[in-house]
């Protein structure tokens, strides 16, 4: 089966002449796989994820999103591919003047299905992430955990093939991070490819009891398999 995202000898540096942050990275994300990405702060985890969803273009190597070469893709083609990739950021970005419900349904409006969106599905989604009673709240009124769950709901509302989460448990307590992890594992069981960037080892250990996950580490600009020492 074709990889959903494939990186081949990828390197990345911010600006001309600056040192490479990532070098010689090769990875295939197969459909339905579950990956953790670890590494110290500043090692390039966020940059790696941005490369995976086409927000950054590699300075060397090749990236394929759903079998399309990123360099050959127009901005609109990348936008179309991004509809198949749900992204959850640590600092979960929202449109501040829209409430939770509108923020979560935003991807449906972007693709033009806003009017056709099945409202009961959206309510189910809100219930799934435990935000039914917070649907009319604005992002500024949400706690850290609620924001993460709202971001996850927005990331999955289009039923994407891939979910990329960048430190999704960074700002929330243990109990809430477990709840979020279970939601991500549940999505993986539905066939979604999941990659979580985190430096929270306890989260990775907890996940290993729930799902077959590959653990990757960025060390010295390179990607390594790190499952054995966890």
């Amino acid at each position, binding site marked *: 089966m074709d990889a959903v995202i494939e990186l081949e000898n990828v390197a990345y540096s911010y600006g001309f002449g600056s040192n490479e942050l990532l070098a010689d990275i090769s990875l295939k994300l197969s459909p339905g796989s579950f990956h953790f990405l670890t590494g110290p702060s500043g090692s390039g985890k966020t940059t790696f994820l941005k490369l995976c969803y086409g927000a950054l273009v590699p300075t060397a190597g090749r990236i394929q999103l759903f079998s399309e070469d990123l360099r050959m893709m127009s901005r609109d083609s990348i936008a179309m591919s*991004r509809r198949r990739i749900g992204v959850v950021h640590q600092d979960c970005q929202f449109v501040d003047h829209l409430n939770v419900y509108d923020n979560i349904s935003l991807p449906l409006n972007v693709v033009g299905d806003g009017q056709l969106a099945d409202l009961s599905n959206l309510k189910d989604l809100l219930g799934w992430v435990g935000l039914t009673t917070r649907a009319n709240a604005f992002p500024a009124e949400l706690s850290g955990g609620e924001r993460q769950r709202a971001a996850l709901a927005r990331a999955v509302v*289009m039923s994407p093939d891939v979910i990329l989460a960048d430190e999704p448990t960074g700002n929330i307590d243990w109990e809430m991070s477990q709840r979020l992890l279970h939601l991500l594992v549940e999505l993986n069981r539905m066939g979604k490819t999941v990659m979580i960037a985190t430096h929270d080892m306890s989260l990775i250990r907890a996940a290993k009891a729930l799902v077959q996950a590959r653990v990757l580490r960025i060390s010295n600009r390179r990607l390594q398999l790190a499952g054995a020492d966890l």
Partner: protein
Amino acid sequence: MLGVVSSIKILAGDRQADRIVPPTGFTARLTLFTAAAMAFLSVFALALSLASGRLASRWGEELAQSSTVRISAPSDQLASQTQAALRVLRTTQGVASARALTQAEQQALLEPWLGPDVPVDTLPVPQLIEVIEAPEGYDVAGLRLRLSAEVAGAVVDDHTRWRRPLVRAAARLRLLAWLSIGLIGGLMAAMITLAANATLAANTQVIAVLRLIGATDMYITGAFVRRFTNRALAGALFGTGVAVLALVFLPSSEQENGFLTGLGFQGFHWVLPAIVPFVAAAVAFVSTRAAASRALRAFS
């Protein structure tokens, strides 16, 4: 062609997309005010341009259709020279009519300068003959030659030296008015571009979110462009309305004894201000779209 199609798609409207751009902010007021003020000024510049055009053509037509023959002769020869000049004029091709001004008419012409009580008939005032040209006009040089041969004291004044500077001044005024309209349009485009850039800069998070969830450039651009186009249209409608009202209540040209042709519009020209809000909206559309496209390119 693609540009036209995408423009229509952008203008078609999307209620959900429009909610993404925050509804208020100083740029909203700035755009409304700018569009209103520019539309107000545009209507006045348009009125000035049309009025100066009317002035130029009126002066041109009036002065071009008539000329004057002045007879300067000793008082005992004045009547005979006048009759001789009239005979020449009546046989000149292109002259529709010619008549000697009466004493009273000549006095009326001098009255503004000399006052009503001066006995003009005692002064050595030359006799004036008013010449009305036929539409095809007459040969001024030929007439001068004939008059110099037959009427020694006759001088032809075809008003050229009066007409040219007046018509040139009116034409220059009209050009300046059009230039003003162009400058107003350019200034409005610059102001709206600044406002759009400020809005785009203030909404980088909104753009980041939209990019993250797979919004295309047209979707993002459309949301901002529609907002600014609608604001500019609303502001320009208000400004145009106020300007038209102000022109309606200007003193009429009759009250000013015909000196002014009236700065207001005349006839079908009253329809022209209706174009101003749509031109303002088009300027806003183009400038916001360009600003948004630049911002999105920089964003990626």
